[in-house]
């Protein structure tokens, strides 16, 4: 069998004296859409920060497509085909929407640190930038500085930058947070489409999104995975109901 796209083995993370991730074991198969749910402060974003290299785990190891990437800096993990979005919008504020998305494409497009090629002549990269912008309904806003976009547009741009480079493992941290029902529906449709044939891990509070999108779900409570399974299994799990869904449903 193929190696899992992402595998965590006994991962722990402490900030000073407080242990926020308390021994997580998780395997996400290639091509799977995996949702991570859990109450506020459970450590979901911290988990993403560990997997994407923003933080190094205190102990345990993280494997990307079978290779140990524990402790590698984010750019090296990204170059191995993992891309993530942020819960708090994290974009290039003074650059145009167009430039933002193209920044997500340059390394993946093989440009590295080149200072002898004009970006205006990178027809393949520019065409792909245009396609991504069209997908996210941002074409009309292409020349606007990202900092002046509306909140929903910035959220869309955040995801657009993340997926632009064509990474095959994608981590989305609450992509629909703060969106209206209508915007959420559109975003979910888009996420479903762009994650076709790729591995997706998504943190989400909106249960309709989670149950509509995910092949498997893991429930993280207080730094530990208390349950992991298909949406059906999670829905029926007593432990999950008590730990998490019970509070939400109330």
């Amino acid at each position, binding site marked *: 069998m193929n190696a899992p796209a992402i595998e965590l083995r006994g991962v722990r993370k402490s900030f000073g004296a407080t242990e926020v991730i308390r021994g997580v074991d998780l395997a996400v198969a290639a091509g799977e859409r995996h949702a991570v749910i859990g109450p506020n402060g459970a450590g979901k974003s911290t988990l993403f920060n560990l997997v*994407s*290299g*923003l933080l190094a785990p205190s102990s345990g190891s993280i494997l990307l497509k079978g290779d140990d990437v524990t402790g590698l*800096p*984010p*750019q090296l993990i*990204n*170059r191995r085909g993992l*891309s*993530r979005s*942020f819960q708090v919008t*994290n*974009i*290039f*504020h*003074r*650059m145009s929407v167009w*430039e933002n998305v*193209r*920044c*997500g494409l*340059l*390394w*993946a497009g093989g*440009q*590295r*640190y*080149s*200072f*002898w*090629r*004009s*970006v*205006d002549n*990178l027809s393949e990269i520019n065409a792909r930038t245009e396609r991504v912008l*069209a997908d996210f*309904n941002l*074409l*009309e806003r*292409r*020349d606007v500085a990202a900092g002046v976009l509306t909140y929903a547009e910035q959220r869309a741009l955040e995801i657009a*930058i*993340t997926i632009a*480079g064509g990474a095959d493992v994608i981590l989305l941290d609450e992509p629909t947070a703060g969106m209206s029902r209508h915007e959420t529906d*559109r975003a979910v449709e888009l996420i479903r489409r762009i994650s076709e044939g790729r591995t997706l891990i998504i943190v989400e509070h909106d249960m309709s999104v989670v149950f509509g999108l995910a092949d498997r779900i893991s429930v993280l409570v207080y730094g530990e995975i208390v349950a992991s399974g298909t949406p059906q299994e999670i829905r029926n799990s007593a432990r999950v109901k008590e730990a998490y869904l019970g509070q939400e449903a109330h």
Partner: protein
Amino acid sequence: MTDRVVNAVVGSASRGVPMSALARYGVWVVAAAVLAVLPFVFGSGLALTVMSLMGIAVIFSLSYNILLGQTGLLSFGHAVYYGFGGYLAVHAMKAIVANGLPVPLPVIPLVGGLAGLFFAALFGWVSTKRSGTAFAMISLGLAELIGSSALILRGFFGGEEGITADRTKLLRILDWSFGPQVQVYYLIAVWCLLCAILMYAVTRTPLGRMCNAVRDNPERVQFVGYDPRMVRFLAFCLSGLFAGVAGALAAINFEIANSALFGAVQSGTVLLATFMGGAGFFFGPVLGAVLVVYLQLMLSDLTGIWQLYFGLLFIAMVMFAPSGLAGLIMMHRPLWRARALHRMVPAYFVALVPLLVMLAGAALMIEMFHHLMVKAVEGPAMKFMYIPLHANAVGPWLVGLLMAGGGFLLFHRSFRVVAAAWNRTGVADAAGGRP
């Protein structure tokens, strides 16, 4: 959704037409023509010297803006690379003359550029590990270090006097000796245009784009595959390269390299010029460099305390026009596009008159104060703008006070006139308010 996408594509197609060759290169052709013609318009020795200094300052400021405006790095020690460019250029000229090597003068700036590049790579490897305040402090420390070694390592730096070379003794091409200032001017103009084109081209490359990304958000840059430290390092190297070219041209112009090239004044001036011109726009530093060189020469001719006025101007720019001259100009672009620029002229005139009155009144009082404090031995008689007066008399002080105070009040009220005129043009104020 599909409809909207289609609309968007069609809508953008009309805007997204690729720039024609004329629009793309036209500005450089015009710049080349202007540089070529300038000596025929301003042919005096003084004018040629001033224009030569401006050309050097333009390269230096543009190189500085690779750091400040494009990568978001505030350096207090950019003169280090300018200085090494200058020293290595003089050493190269001396060696070439001493050994009779067949190397003409116009390639010497390349030596300066390589020197700047080498030292930028050396020092930048350390300093670009950090950004923000730490980077700024390291740059300051390095500048101090180099500045003081320049006085200690006499063999290389020549101590207080510096080292000199004769630029006319190199291999001649087309019989140009580079003795006359006009020939040096053309040498500087060609290098200035070449460097400006190259530096602009770099902003349009993947590295140039990622410099902007690092400026805006270094954390996110890591998650699209780039190492922000490497981006900063490469930007620093390029910046050092062009600073070295500028330093070499300065050394050629003065036929000397001394420790002043490394000085804090040099590092400070390039920061001021870049900021006043507008770090947010590629052409901003060009305006800033021209303005600062002009002001330095013109003000120092008019008054003994020109640094004071220069400082006040800088503070005023920081407070009221933080995006610099280029920002002020670009603010008017929507008006220009709407062909409504001329409708602002009366309002600006209404604002300009009290502004000038206010500045004249303030300058009068500053000059009288300066005269009383510093030139007391000469007695109270002095001249202000060719008008004889007594610095200790009540009359001139009253006039100064009235002009400054009244001018300020009227200038302040004129803001409303300007704002009203702007509103009447019907063009939205993109910059969010008048300065």
